[in-house]
């Protein structure tokens, strides 16, 4: 069956990407290999001497040829063993996984807000094309699409937390404070979804089958909703999924502004401290999540759209 072949093909495509990502993460530690030994020593509180460095290199296997080192590292990485964080001395996987739910919650909330706003806006805007409402939606979405999230976040924080004291200055990853960070994250996506959906709907409205449906007696709105929306939503699924995946890599700026303890902010802080095991772990975990989400999306798409099987 064609579909099975497509699915297999799609899964095979992952392999080169995984390879690139793991090599990237591995090279990261090797380019600064001199650092790895001395940083490891420092993190253990041992004096950095030539002798000690040699011992650590031996211990960490840094003297073996590169491919061997990569293979050894990969074997551990497969089991999510990236060693301990230099800063906290706790296992990297633990550090990352404990922060992942916060990032996930934020991404989910932001996606939900975007869709809840974009779908009705786009449908009304397309139905009443060239009306005042349509013009307003288009103008606002073109401004919103250019608004940098970090500045929007700062301004919202200033207005609502400092000036009007409605929201807390520090959100501290608590679900009841999710509205402002999630909204900040959602604005640019809402604008993008509204524009895409509106133009898809307008394209659909020109399609023969909408006119045919109207010739059968369906009202213009009804024909658009019944026959246009599903077809217009399909391409949007990919866009929403990709953005969701990107959000799961951590939204560093928004997490920083609202003191939301997610993985993005954590990874950047570790970067500044040269906490390499964490960075490696972060790159691998995030990439895999990201690849999986893309895979799931493509699979969903293959099963929703009946056309794929016959092509």
């Amino acid at each position, binding site marked *: 069956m064609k579909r099975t072949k497509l699915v297999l093909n799609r899964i095979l495509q992952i392999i080169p990407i995984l390879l690139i990502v793991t090599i990237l993460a591995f090279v990261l530690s090797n380019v600064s290999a001199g650092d790895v030994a001395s940083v490891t020593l420092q993190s253990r509180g041992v004096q950095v001497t030539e002798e000690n460095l040699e011992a650590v290199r031996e211990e960490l296997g840094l003297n073996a040829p590169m491919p061997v080192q990569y293979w050894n590292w990969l074997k551990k990485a497969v089991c999510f063993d990236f060693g301990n964080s230099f800063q906290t001395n706790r296992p990297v996987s633990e550090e990352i996984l404990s922060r992942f739910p916060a990032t996930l919650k934020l991404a989910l909330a932001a996606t939900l807000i975007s869709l809840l706003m974009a779908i009705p806006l786009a449908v009304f805007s397309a139905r009443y094309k*060239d009306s005042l409402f349509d013009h307003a939606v288009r103008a606002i979405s073109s401004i919103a699409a250019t608004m940098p999230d970090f500045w929007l976040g700062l301004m919202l924080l200033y207005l609502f937390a400092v000036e009007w004291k409605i929201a807390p200055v520090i959100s501290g990853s608590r679900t009841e404070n999710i509205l402002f960070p999630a909204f900040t994250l959602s604005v640019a996506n809402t604008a993008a979804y509204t524009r895409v959906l509106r133009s898809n709907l307008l394209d659909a409205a020109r*399609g*023969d*089958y909408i*006119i*045919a*449906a*109207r*010739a*059968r*007696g*369906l*009202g*213009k709105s009804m024909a658009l909703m*019944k*026959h246009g929306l*599903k*077809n217009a939503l*399909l391409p949007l699924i990919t866009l929403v999924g990709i953005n969701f995946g990107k959000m799961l890599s951590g939204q560093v700026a928004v997490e920083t502004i609202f003191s939301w303890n997610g993985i993005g902010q954590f990874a950047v802080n570790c970067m500044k401290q040269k906490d390499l095991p964490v960075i490696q772990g972060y790159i691998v975990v995030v990439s895999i999540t990201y690849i999986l989400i893309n895979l799931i999306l493509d699979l969903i798409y293959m099963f929703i*759209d*009946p*056309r794929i099987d*016959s092509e």
Partner: protein
Amino acid sequence: MILMSNTPVLQIKNLKTYFYSRDSVVKAVDGVNMEVHSGRITALIGGSGSGKSVMSRSVMGLIDKPGKIVDGEIWLNGRDLRLLSEKEMRKVRGKEIAMIFQEPAAAMNPVVKIKDHLFEAVHTHDRKARRKDKMPAFREVLLGVGLRDPDKILESYPFELSGGMCQRVMVAMGIVANAGVLIADEPTSSLDLTTQISILEELMSLRDAGIAIILITHDLGVVAQTADDMYVMKDGKIIESGTVREVFAAPKHPYTRYLMEPVHVEELR
């Protein structure tokens, strides 16, 4: 032969549909008069850009901006469609006039199954209709338009059917709602020759069942084979009309005569 009733089901008087762009007006339909009778096929023939497709959409009330019907009357079953509200017009579409299109595959939503298309045609005008109750009727209608395996077709998506099968389904959708007038807009020009013939035969048997058919085409051969009355359209105006026999026997307008020279038949495309 079926006797011609004296009053036409559909009468179009002085219809004008214009399209407006920033600095020009295109008079796609410019003062057309037409009569369509039950149990007859009325052909509307013209070249590309003559306005015949815009005509059919005007009758259905499906002209969107930047187009507009600026003048005229469209009398159907004793009332002028132009005076109806959009809501009343919706009850006319599909129920009193059905329409089939040039690209049958494009005229059906690719992600909606045939049975749901058929059900929509019924449900739009009969809110109480239940899908389950209608299935036997659907099967019968599909058999009626010459589709042999109705159960399989009901469960298919439009893209899984051939162009000819799709067109038969479109005809079936017109029939399930019991429309008295069927507008067929180039129903065969995207199909191969054998399929063309069988679709035309389908239309003729509908005519014999008493339905009024408007057949829009650029193909004089099709007109000669199937139509009873004909109108020749050029630049938004009707330049010649009459029964097919009359017009073919003695074409009055030079353009019609020009079209009938065998060399020029191709040029209509």
